[in-house]
């Protein structure tokens, strides 16, 4: 067990609740505290890192895609990956493979890998603590 590693288990899909945003804030805080971080994304959370996410315009408000500046969680995850690299920390994000297949969201951004529950077991074994952020 490493005293320098924390694991977070996410379940909520993107664009659905505040929990996903809070989870990414927690990951950011852990990296800022100097922890290596593991994330295991289950169920709808596999969509957080989907590479096909695309910013969109808002016709009702008369804004194009650039001025709408619609946030995509894949970009926040990329920023966390960059932050980890800058600080020589390990940031390992695993998407549940079966969950990705079910949802057709197998294409994830670079640095996100496909895995199985055994990866979560390994994460837990190697971490000082694991926090599960459940769906409602």
């Amino acid at each position, binding site marked *: 067990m490493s005293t320098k590693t924390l694991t977070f288990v996410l379940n909520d899909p993107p664009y659905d609740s505040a929990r996903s945003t809070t989870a990414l804030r927690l990951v950011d*805080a852990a990296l800022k505290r100097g922890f290596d971080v593991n994330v295991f994304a289950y169920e709808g959370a596999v969509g957080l890192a989907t590479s096909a996410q695309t910013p969109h315009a808002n016709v009702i408000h008369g804004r194009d895609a650039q001025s709408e500046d619609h946030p995509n969680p894949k970009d926040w995850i990329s920023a966390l990956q960059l932050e980890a690299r800058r600080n020589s920390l390990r940031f390992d994000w695993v998407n549940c493979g079966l969950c990705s297949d079910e949802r057709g969201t197998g294409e994830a951004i670079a640095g996100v890998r496909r895995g199985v529950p055994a990866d979560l077991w390994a994460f837990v074994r190697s971490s*000082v603590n694991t*926090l599960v952020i459940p769906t409602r």
Partner: protein
Amino acid sequence: MAGYVLIAARDPWDGPEQESVFELAATLARARDSVSIYLTENGVLAARAGGGERFLDPLLSAGVSVFADPFALAERGISDQRIVSGVVTAPIEHLVDLLAEGRSGLWF
């Protein structure tokens, strides 16, 4: 025993089941466990002075440490000058610190 950190993320007025986090904290405190509650998202609504005391005063009296996420407070327009006495505002990094102590974390 490293104790517990319970994360309360839901509006406590959103039905009786939302009070289970406070009931569990009280039970653990009575068992002399070290218990902290971290209020975030709509859970910070419990920290509003003039209403949240019904949830938090019994816990504070029992020795439970209660922290509130300033980001979530600000999002909801709750000034840290108007929160239940005894609640401490603490950035989310503090939740990381509590987890790093090895406390069992339970998200509600």
